[in-house]
């Protein structure tokens, strides 16, 4: 029987610390952007920054970087379901 344990090669401490630094800077950016009072655009910018942070967490901290293609793609499914739900909800809200 094959003895090698499954699981991916380890990342490095440095990668994680860089990821954390980027996340903290983006959190600071989202607060700074809110101070600019950009009106309707502010929600778009806030969501873009939040999604960038989520992507960093998924890719590095949650190891999607090292996973098989199945894991890389599968998590898009609930996001797609969510997009459809919110899309159709707003079709109802907007054109009722």
């Amino acid at each position, binding site marked *: *029987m094959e003895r090698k*344990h*499954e*699981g991916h090669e*380890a*990342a*490095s*401490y440095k990668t*994680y*610390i860089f*990821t*954390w630094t980027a*996340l*903290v800077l983006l*959190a600071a950016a*989202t*607060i700074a952007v*809110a*101070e*600019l*009072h*950009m*009106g309707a655009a*502010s*929600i778009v910018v*806030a*969501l873009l*920054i*939040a999604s960038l*942070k*989520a992507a960093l*967490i*998924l890719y*590095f*901290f*949650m*190891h999607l970087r090292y*996973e*098989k293609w*199945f*894991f890389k793609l*599968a*998590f898009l*499914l*609930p*996001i797609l*379901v*969510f997009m459809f*739900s*919110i899309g159709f*909800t*707003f079709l109802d*809200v907007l054109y009722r």
Partner: protein
Amino acid sequence: MTEETLHKTAEVHRDYTGSKMGMWLFLFTEMLLFGGMFILYAVYRFKHPEEFHTSAQDLDTTIGAINTLILLTSSLTMALSILALQKGKKRLSLVFQVLTILMGAAFLGNKSLEWGAKFHHGMYPNSAYLLTKSSGEILFYGLYFVMTGIHGLHVLIGIGVLLFMVLFTMRGSIDSTNFVKLENSGLYWHFVDIVWVYLFPLFYLIT
């Protein structure tokens, strides 16, 4: 294959990919649990933009920002604890696991201060004071208490799970060759962090 080797193979059988897949499937249901609440939030914010804006002014951005920093840092120590264990550094991994738990507790401590101040001002779901407000504000605070409340509950559960991981690591039932339990706990912890990444700007930073 003799009876004995069959037995041994069964004993060491581990399905690493299966364990991971199970955890991700569970997280998908969690994504949709929070997703439903985010849809409600989106509709009501769309219908009451002014009230959402004025209500958000009354939330303490400083506490929100501190909690963001705490959770992001706890995600770092969580990831580091797995890496340390993979490299066979059990003590270091335990230190990172305990740090993660402490930061989770600090997050909840801040949250209780924040909620306590709101309760003190008569602001809690269905309170007489809250019900005198406009419907947009009632909806904002309803969503605020439910969404940050369920998120806080997830942090609490995460702390509970990590306490078990500390125990398992000390006992040696998770180690550098068998760490999927710790990895899956990490997935849960990071997921809860991601939820906060969206909650923070959507509740505290509406301008």
